[in-house]
């Protein structure tokens, strides 16, 4: 962590980025929460990571307000009446976004935009202008790649306008997901989404059937990278087990599974319990925030996210596999062990009764964390196959299908396509349909030469990366993360489908 002096003299940070870093520095001087020394040791040793959430959680990590309440009732705290036309609707949303906290202090969920805006579309030309300005505002003011909007599953006028304007603007923010179900989403709308995705790396496709079965059809949203969370709720906290490092400590597969995993699961769940209890019982958030008071969110809809990274390297280490191309993702025995580990982990986590998780079966839900830039090459995101060792795309999809079911709060794969696919979005849609049928939860793609590219779960602009390389400040706070992942984890070198 940088010192205050380092932060305020860093010319690559904007004012707002300095401000957030200074606040984090302040938070971390607090010593109220009695973290278990064993936990701190495990963190120090790189076995568990708290993702720099801060010492004193004063709000949940991810919040997914139910913005339909704003459309219906307005907001007393924000002094807003229910909007009557497209200008009032987009304006009300922009106002409210400013007041939705998160770990990055930007709102990580902007709502199901097409559902919210469709009732206000009267004149298409006017609506296009309003939505265009709305999206521009989001990119320039909510300048963080973890700001995320959803569309779909139904084909709507608003959805089409959002896609058209997304294509025109070519921005990294907001990140975007279409909730896709081949039975609810028209082929035309699906192909349009695929076409826009190939040009701007968004929207990604979420398996609506799968999420609906877990959360209820109208009760979930995709936030931040690809985090599936309950609408009018969210995620309290997200620490992660660093499986690649834990495997290095193991003397055998049995030792890993039956001694080390239980030990670290205990340490991490205890850590999560402590933070969640503090958030709910002591911090002001659930007592006084207008989001709670006006019903935009309900405490019982929040869940603790149990993260993990580096399954691929974990499995390869446990099996003594050195050549990544012959290991996890390319080797049935390695994949079997991978699934065995995840199933076992899921079981261990399910045995722990999680506090304040009323609508989540009183347990923590698994999340395949995408990694952070400093993880480097020794730890692949979540349960992904290492970059550079991906098998043919259909095999990679089948592999994903085995693992995605374990991770309701987020997992996904990214595929890079050659330029010619831009001419045939319906072909890409064929692949996506097959992927969803194979049990894939979340599918992202982009084209080789785009300006907007997907790093691990979020988007950055190559042109902004170049600015940062020249040591100039850039608007989007996530660009620096993208720079790190590009340089240290080769995150932009994934296999291309021709």
């Amino acid at each position, binding site marked *: 962590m940088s010192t205050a002096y380092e932060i305020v003299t860093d010319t690559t940070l904007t004012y707002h980025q300095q401000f957030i870093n200074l606040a984090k520095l302040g938070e971390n001087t607090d010593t109220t929460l009695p973290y278990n020394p064993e936990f701190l040791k495990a963190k120090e040793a790189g076995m568990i990571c708290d993702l720099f959430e801060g010492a004193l959680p004063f709000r949940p990590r991810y919040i997914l307000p139910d913005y339909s309440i704003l459309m219906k009732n307005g907001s007393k705290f924000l002094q807003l009446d229910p909007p009557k036309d497209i200008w009032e609707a987009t304006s009300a949303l922009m106002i409210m976004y400013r007041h939705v906290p998160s770990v990055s202090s930007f709102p990580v969920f902007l709502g199901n935009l097409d559902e919210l805006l469709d009732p206000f579309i009267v004149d298409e030309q006017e609506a296009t202008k309003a939505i265009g300005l709305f999206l521009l505002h989001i990119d320039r003011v909510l300048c963080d790649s973890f700001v995320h909007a959803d569309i779909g599953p139904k084909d709507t006028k608003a959805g089409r306008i959002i896609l058209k304007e997304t294509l025109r603007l070519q921005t990294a923010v907001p990140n975007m997901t279409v909730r896709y179900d081949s039975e609810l989403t028209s082929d035309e709308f699906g192909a349009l989404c695929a076409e826009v995705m190939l040009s701007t790396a968004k929207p990604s496709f979420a398996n609506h059937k799968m999420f609906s079965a877990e959360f209820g059809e109208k009760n979930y949203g995709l936030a931040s990278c690809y985090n599936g969370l309950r609408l009018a709720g969210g995620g309290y906290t997200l620490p992660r087990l660093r499986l690649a490092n834990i495997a290095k400590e193991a003397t055998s597969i049995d030792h890993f599974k039956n001694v080390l995993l239980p030990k670290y699961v205990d340490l991490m769940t205890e850590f999560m319990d402590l933070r969640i209890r503090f958030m709910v019982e002591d911090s002001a958030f659930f007592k006084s925030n207008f989001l709670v008071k006006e019903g935009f969110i309900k405490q019982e809809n929040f869940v603790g996210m149990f993260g993990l990274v580096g399954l691929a390297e974990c499995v390869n280490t446990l099996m003594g596999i050195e050549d990544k191309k012959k290991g996890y993702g390319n080797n049935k025995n390695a994949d079997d062990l991978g699934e065995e580990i995840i199933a076992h982990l899921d079981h261990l986590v399910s045995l722990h009764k999680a506090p304040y998780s009323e609508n989540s079966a009183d347990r923590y839900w698994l999340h395949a964390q995408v990694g952070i830039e400093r993880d480097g090459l020794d730890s692949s995101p979540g349960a992904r196959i290492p970059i550079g060792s991906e098998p*043919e*795309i*259909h095999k990679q*999809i089948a592999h994903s299908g085995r693992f995605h079911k374990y991770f309701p709060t987020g997992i996904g794969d990214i595929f890079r396509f050659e330029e*010619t*696919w831009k*001419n*045939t979005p*319906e*072909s*890409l849609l*064929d*692949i996506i*349909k*097959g*992927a969803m*049928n*194979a049990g894939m939860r979340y599918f992202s793609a982009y084209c080789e030469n785009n300006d907007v590219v997907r790093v691990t779960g979020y988007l950055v602009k190559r042109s902004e990366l170049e600015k940062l390389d020249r040591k100039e400040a850039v608007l989007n706070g996530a660009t620096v993360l993208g720079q790190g992942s590009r340089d240290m984890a080769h995150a932009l070198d994934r296999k291309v*489908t*021709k």
Partner: protein
Amino acid sequence: MLFAPVNRIIPFSNVDGPGNRMAIFLQSCPFQCWYCHNPETINMCIHCGICVPGCPSKALAMTHGKVHWDESLCEQCDSCIKICPHLASPKILTMSSDEVIDKLSEVSSFVRGITVSGGECMMHPEFLEELFGKVKALNMTSLIDSNGFVRFEDYPRLMDVCDGVMLDVKATDPKFHQQLAKHDNASVMDNLRYLLSVNKLTEVRIVCLPRFDEQNRKTIEDVVSIVKDQARIKLIRYRPYGVRKEGLDILGSASLDEELFLEYRRYAQSLGAGEVVSV
């Protein structure tokens, strides 16, 4: 069960017909076009062994007078096909229709069917008939990508199980076709009319060449006058990649001028063509 020499299979292809398809390339072709992009598909390997020592990963070996290719050792560096003086490849698998269907099953939830190309896949019509019957049983579609050398009307049972043909018309001027492809085009023109009449003409493909403006225009005129708006016309811009020396000497090492290419597209449209795509 019938077998055919397979040059390669691309599990996902977006360029060989509607939607995502598995593309199968069969070996050998009776033509030898100037601009062939994969000349290693033209002839069957004669097992001369010349390519064997050039393989950097020891994936090739001569046993009992035949070249043997070990797929698991191959790094796909393509040295062997560059070395081969016979326009062939040692990396050919003889596959049964069932083996091809097995490959299809791996990707069946991602594709709408198969497209068989080459080489010239119509060198193996009985194999195609058997294969397509099995594809149909899986509720998927089969397309043929052909140079029109073999007469389709001689294979009515194949036509029953084939969902469409994408036909190359390399030139409508018989003399020019003879020079360009080392074969005349009588059967190609007959096939064009026949496929149209039985409603199996999915697409006509015309490669537009540099230095042969008149021939390009003539082919477009003749094809449009026969096909009218009844099938998609795909104009393909000449690109020098993979073309062997003979072709480069005649056509040059630059792609066809983009402006001119777009002009051809407008020309086809002005003659009354239906859908015209240019790639």
